[in-house]
């Protein structure tokens, strides 16, 4: 028995599952055999990542705090500087 027949044997009672499996075809991109570290780095940097502030943003009201936080931090730092100069 050839390999293909042998492997299809286990799917004999499952024509629909076989049809699903057959429908999954993969397009092969064109790429060289030798790796290019620079293009790997670019690929890594360009890939989508999780948002580190996602959990924070999802909380109600925290989006407002997040957007005004640079201004608040700036004001606090400014206050410290004023205190240092005045003392």
């Amino acid at each position, binding site marked *: 028995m050839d390999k293909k027949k042998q492997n299809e044997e286990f799917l004999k009672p499952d024509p629909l599952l076989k049809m*699903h*499996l057959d429908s*999954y075809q993969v397009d092969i991109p064109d790429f060289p*055999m030798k790796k290019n570290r620079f293009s790997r780095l670019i690929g890594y940097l360009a890939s*989508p990542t999780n948002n580190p502030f996602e959990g924070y943003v999802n909380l109600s009201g925290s989006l407002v705090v997040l957007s005004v936080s640079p201004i608040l931090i700036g004001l606090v730092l400014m206050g410290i500087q004023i205190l240092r100069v005045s003392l």
Partner: protein
Amino acid sequence: MSVNENKVSQLIQKFQEGDKEAFDQLYVLFKPSLYAFLFRFTKDEQFCIDIVQDAFLKLHENVHRYDSNKASLKTYLFQIAYNLMINKLNRRKKWEKLIPFLIPRHSQTIHQDESLTIREAILQLSESHRAIIILSYYHEMTQNEISEVVGIPVGTVKSRLHHAINKLREFLEVDLHGQEKAK
């Protein structure tokens, strides 16, 4: 020995004798199937390209160790690529725990009420089951060859294959008689 296997053994011999073009031909011959295996496993194009390139680099370095009496070149190459992929995925999982936002995002959450496509259903299988169904169905590997690639006993391959098919049926909502389940 099939025509293809004959051609492969000739190319290996030529490469071992110093013909560099023979290795390029091996790359052309095996790149599509190796990439397809990795892509069906991970669904991550750039990751698969990296693994294919690393696997061929490793094969280039270790081709003198390859013994055609022990395994076919396809099995040997797939074994290299599978080990590289699993090591890289494990390393990625560790980093994901430490710094989740620096790891590329690829997985998608699938709601329970949605029926899955075959791509998604294969991805939902555990890694150990996924490799076996892909190698068995799409790459026409025997259970002995799969056991060499994945590094598990033949008996385990058989049971995992059986389990993987049942899981796929469940995910795709296909019943035992090959009919779509009524929704």
